[in-house]
């Protein structure tokens, strides 16, 4: 966005810390698990850990994009994981040739066929998630419920709704065209990463080439002053939560496509926490305000690079959570250190402020 580049600018940039974190993890891998970087070609497409980071991380990147806007308005969306489960269940049920509790033979269930055209499945899936987001947005902006509580409702209820849709079953998907979103490749790269890129660009244009980005930041920083400037904070919030719902739905679609199944209890489990972590790593304050979509996406990439690095190191899956806790701790420390630096320079600025009647004020 800025033409001028200087070192302090780079250091203050939201991208700096998240890129540093990524570099540290990659550096560690270069020393201890060099095979992490191996990229090969199989069936005409690329494969390897780095490609997996993009493909497996795609749902989290999408959720993080939506979460960024919500957090920037000063809120939070805890329901993203549950919304993923809802949209995954929606997709699976529409594919399933035998919906409901009808007695069907195994042969029918495992057929590579669908009950509903793929386009309708995608639209219905996305609509379901978007509707969930709209619901959150209405609770927060119109009913004035605190975001934490408002989205907690759907976080808890959402998994129930997902189970209701899938009739309490884990639905395995056999319809191969549906697998394209999570397993397909275009020009050697996973389809999912194109989807992420498309959504990220769409979101970036949507907020930075319109006033919406400024309004979101203003609402997050000082809602009252924003209201007094004639800007409807309500509609801005509604938009952010609805968009977050849309992103979660897309993430749910990709995830269920990747794992070939919809499980109301486990699809998108803990995604809300990972997404919040990704956004925080991207330098967006939990209190709202300035945000960077790219930095949040990078945050998601860091989380998945870390996860897959642990796998590559041979850390068992059930010990991974502990490893991730270490990552969280490190990030929080980095973050609070940054706050310290900020506070220090703030003090200086405050003093500068008392001097700003002087004409020759150097840029602090």
């Amino acid at each position, binding site marked *: 966005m800025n033409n001028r580049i200087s070192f302090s600018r780079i250091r203050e940039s939201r991208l700096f810390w998240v890129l540093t974190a990524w570099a540290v993890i990659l550096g560690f891998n270069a020393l201890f698990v060099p095979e992490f970087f191996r990229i090969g070609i199989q069936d005409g497409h690329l494969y390897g850990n780095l490609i997996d980071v993009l493909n497996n991380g795609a749902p989290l990147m999408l959720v993080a994009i939506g979460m960024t806007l919500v957090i920037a308005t000063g809120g939070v969306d805890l329901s993203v994981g549950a919304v993923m489960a809802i949209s995954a269940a929606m997709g699976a049920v529409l594919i399933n040739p035998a919906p409901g509790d009808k007695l069907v033979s195994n042969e029918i269930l495992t057929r590579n066929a669908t009950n509903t055209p793929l386009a309708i499945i995608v639209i219905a899936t996305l609509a379901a998630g978007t509707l969930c987001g709209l619901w959150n947005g209405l609770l927060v902006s119109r009913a004035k419920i605190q975001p934490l509580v408002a989205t907690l409702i759907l976080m808890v209820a959402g998994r129930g709704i997902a189970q209701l849709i899938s009739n309490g079953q884990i639905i395995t998907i056999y319809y191969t065209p549906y697998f394209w979103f999570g397993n397909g490749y275009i020009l050697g790269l996973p389809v999912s990463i194109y989807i992420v890129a498309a959504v990220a660009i769409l979101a970036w244009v949507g907020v930075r*080439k*319109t*006033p*919406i980005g*400024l*309004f979101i*930041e*203003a609402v997050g*920083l*000082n809602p*009252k*002053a*924003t*209201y*007094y*400037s*004639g*800007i*409807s904070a309500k509609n801005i919030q509604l938009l952010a939560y609805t968009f977050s719902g849309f992103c979660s739905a897309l993430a749910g679609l990709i995830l269920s496509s990747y794992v070939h199944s919809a499980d109301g209890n486990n699809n998108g489990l803990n995604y809300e926490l990972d997404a919040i972590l990704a956004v925080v790593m991207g330098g967006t304050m939990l209190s709202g*305000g*300035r945000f960077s979509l790219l930095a949040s996406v990078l945050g998601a990439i860091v989380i998945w690079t870390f996860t897959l690095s642990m796998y590559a190191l041979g850390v068992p899956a059930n010990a991974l959570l502990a490893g991730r806790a270490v990552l969280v701790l490190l990030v929080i420390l980095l973050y609070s250190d940054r706050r310290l630096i900020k506070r220090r320079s703030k*003090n*200086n*600025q*405050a*003093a*500068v*402020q*008392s*001097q*700003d*009647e*002087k*004409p020759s*004020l*150097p*840029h*602090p």
Partner: protein
Amino acid sequence: MADPQNLITVSGVSKAFPGVIALEGVEFTLRKGEIHALMGENGAGKSTLIKILTGVEQPDTGRIELENSAISIRSPQHAQDLGISTVYQEINLCTNISVAENIMLGHEPRRFGGIHWKKLNELARQALARLGIELDVTQPLGIYSIAIQQMVAIARALAIASAKVLILDEPTSSLDANETARLFAVMRSLKQAGIGIVFVTHFLDQVYEIVDRVTILRNGRFVGSFEIAALSRVELVAKMLGRVVDELQALAHDKDNSAQQTDNNQLIKASGLGLRGALEPLDLTVGVGEVLGIAGLLGSGRTELASLLFGIATPDSGSLVIDGQPVTRFSPQALIKRGVALCPEDRKAEGIVGELSIRENIILGLQGRYGWFKFIGRQKQTEIAEKYIKLLGIRTPSPDQLVKNLSGGNQQKVILARWLVTQPRLLILDEPTRGIDVGAKAEIQKLVLELVKDGMSIVFISSELEEVVRISDRIVVLRDHAKVAEYDHAVSDRTLMQTMAGEA
């Protein structure tokens, strides 16, 4: 040198921040039982000196003595332990916990390993009683007015330490006349008790009313310390500004000219406009190109009136007509579309978005009016911002500077710019000059008069009567949430004051 009456002696103190010298060779002596004003324009170095005295900043050079022995004040906590208590301009108390807890926070009396609530409340009540205030200390602080909160902050400063020195950083900027008088009574009794008080203020009247001596700073340099009795007002102002001020006199002259131009073409007509509990129904008109002054004490309903005119609150009686068209929907958005703009009283909370740049703050109003789809491009934004930075003389190195880094006067100009960009027809200014130095005050007053010449209508709310009288064509006086009188601009301060106080 070693005068036993000396409480604090600061000599040769300098402090530099990257790129700026905030203080240079400052001298300052506070004696026991004196009230000592610290004066200077915004940016003179008052806050830096106070930060050094309270341990927030460490001086680069120089010596600080407390009761004639050299000390270094390591932290705000350390300052308190030494007996230096401070009440800051921005009240830093917690509004969501009780008054008593605020006063005793960190010093709660304990019993059986828990807090002795009864004693805590009693101690808090006593602390307030010393200031002559009685209130329900178990209520959350937030339900009380800013003025009461200020008193609570003072009570806290005095209660938690055996204070020898009390620093009051602009304590009166949000107090009305009665409350100020009450605060002064408290200050006098503290003075009797031998406490030294450092009093930072912009109000000259108050300085002459209560202060014994004054120390003046300008651009971080020490100008001098004076016995107040030996210093005339003009000399004081001249020393603060480092120049002779005749801008204010020139203004009064301007006013006489513009007063003649107002033939009343009504822009705003409010009839029976009121809101239960906030404002008794009142009639009000504002002509095109007219300044309507609103005078009234804090809590007289002046801010409530501004809220109604700007649509923040919806009236439950009467009607508001703008340019012949009645207002049906009350919201800032709707009223902004009708050409109304408000510079709110609480600049920090309701005006600026501190973490955004000057450019973004200025553009916010116009962009809000344009809505989501008509985007003002980055280049156009910078153009607009630069134009208004120049026009209003906002002192900043760049339009991308964050607004929180500006001084109060410049922040106020940014909010003014935000509205001027939208070319409003009615501009409501609620205490636009509060907490602003003399120079910036004159600039803002001058600007108001220029805008009026261009046909803008202005509602000017201020607690400084002199200012209201100087600028306004007509003055409406509010008292106890009701309109009590309306005067033309020839009214005297004294009459106004009596009307406001209900003596006339």
